[in-house]
């Protein structure tokens, strides 16, 4: 039985990303995640190509599939024309569809990403906007960024006439009609359903972990928790 492998095959990224791996390691050699974590993209590709259900299920519930930064440095080098990062994308998508992502610390972070980036797209039409890069959550952004956020209208106003307003230019507000179209696209293409699945599985897991559902406290837990067992 290759139930999970067949499910992965429905994703064009797996079909494009995995032909046959001969374990040469050129992907791991230049992988920024392999340089940082105890991580080896070659081994993941090798595990997926076994097509073994137990092996793939373990991957879908693992920490390891969440280390990749999707920089695609592996792609131009592979002598077999594979793209390990595409294989990772397919694994991550399936892990979320099946609710397996909540079984790992790094997987549970998908809730934070859904709320920080996903919800922002549905709210503003952008992945990020100045005010959701809050200096208190982003100390690394530095003192200039804090000054910018404290004076955003004064500063952005020098470069755009439509800061937070409708019209053409940087950081404009997307019109209601535009936002309606984006919402419709997310509904029609399964984007909303995917978001909801992340919320539901997270809520289930949060309760299992003793939280009162996937609330703000659980969000901060997945956003900041690092067991330091990844290296």
């Amino acid at each position, binding site marked *: 039985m290759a139930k999970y492998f067949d499910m992965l095959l429905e994703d064009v990224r797996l079909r494009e990303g995995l032909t046959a791996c001969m374990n040469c*390691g*050129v992907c791991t*050699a230049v992988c920024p995640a*392999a340089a940082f974590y105890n991580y080896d993209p070659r081994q993941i590709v090798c595990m997926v190509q076994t097509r073994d259900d137990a092996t793939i299920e373990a991957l879908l519930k693992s920490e390891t599939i969440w280390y990749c930064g999707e920089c695609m440095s592996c792609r131009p080098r592979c*002598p077999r024309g594979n793209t390990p990062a595409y294989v990772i994308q397919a694994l991550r998508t399936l892990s979320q569809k099946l609710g397996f992502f909540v079984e790992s610390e790094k997987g549970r972070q998908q809730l934070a990403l859904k709320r920080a980036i996903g919800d922002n797209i549905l709210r503003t039409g952008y992945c990020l906007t100045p005010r959701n890069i809050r200096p208190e959550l982003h100390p690394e952004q530095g003192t200039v960024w804090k000054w910018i956020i404290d004076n955003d209208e004064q500063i952005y106003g020098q470069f755009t006439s439509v800061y937070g307003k409708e019209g053409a230019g940087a950081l404009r507000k997307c019109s209601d009609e535009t936002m309606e179209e984006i919402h419709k696209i997310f509904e029609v293409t399964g984007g909303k359903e995917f978001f909801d699945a992340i919320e539901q599985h997270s809520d289930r897991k949060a309760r299992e972990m003793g939280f009162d559902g996937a609330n703000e406290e659980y969000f901060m837990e997945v956003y900041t928790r690092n067991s330091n067992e990844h290296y």
Partner: protein
Amino acid sequence: MKHVIIIGGGIAGMQCACTLAEKGIATTIIEKDSDLGGKIRSWHVLFPTFTPADQVLSAVRHRLAKAESVTIKTGCEAVKITPKCVTLSTGEELTCDAVVIATGFTLFDARLKEEYGYGIYDNVVTSVDLEQMFNKGEVRLTSGLTPRRIAILHCVGSRDEKVCQRHCSKVCCVTGVKQAIELKKMFPAADVFNFYMDIRMFGPGYEEMYREAQLMHNVHFVRGRISEVSPTIDGRLQIKAEDTLTGRPLKMGIDMLVLLIGMRSNDMNPTLEAESGLKCQPSGFMQPKDSFLGNVESPIEGIFYAGAVTAPKNIGESINEGTAAALAAAEWINK
């Protein structure tokens, strides 16, 4: 007197001419270079015996010089081939009773693997460049210093879809081991690393040489393909690979990188297919009539193959095929 035209004056073609002469058949060798000998002229010593390449070539040259009714035409190429007639690039048409194609292979151009910086970074050389350095008796860095740490990379332009070379070039593994031993003999204090995916020691004495490289010469073997090369501030090279046996990325500073460049199908093969009705394999090498019973025969009766025109081969195999093609051609002529 019957007459066979041999296209290509490398080691296979030369051996073929010798054998045909001994059978009383006249031959004409068509060679595009100005001299016979082919690629072997650039090699230093041959694996696994460390026999000087020149010694092997001289022996065949010597036999050929004594052979009767051998005509040698250098500096020209065959553009169209039938069993009875070969048209040359000069426009000349030569009639014959059979043809042996022994055009060999084309060396992979290492510049196509841009990530290794051949032609861009100093001290990145190919296995062929290294043979030539051995021939001159001197291996030096661009700075004039001697290398202290050398990496030899297998499969450059072989087993690689990115450069449309899926096949294994077969002889690079053993060449890498041979060159590592030569380097260690030259620079006993140097560290020499072979970066490989599989060590394919297919011939007699090859595996033994691999063992000797480890045991007697302390050549290091790392199972992983180098992913990229870059320059360091002190004029050295930085390489990145994965040591796949420990599953960890590896970064190393080296003085010299040797790229074991593969054997590509001959650039002329598509012309053979288009002009002469012969067939190429998916690898680009010519397709023999049968891989078991007709290795030196083409699908066209009266046209034969010898040597690396049909697949990567070592020197011994190429010489054997020269003989086999000569015998097959002689048999066909006398039928």
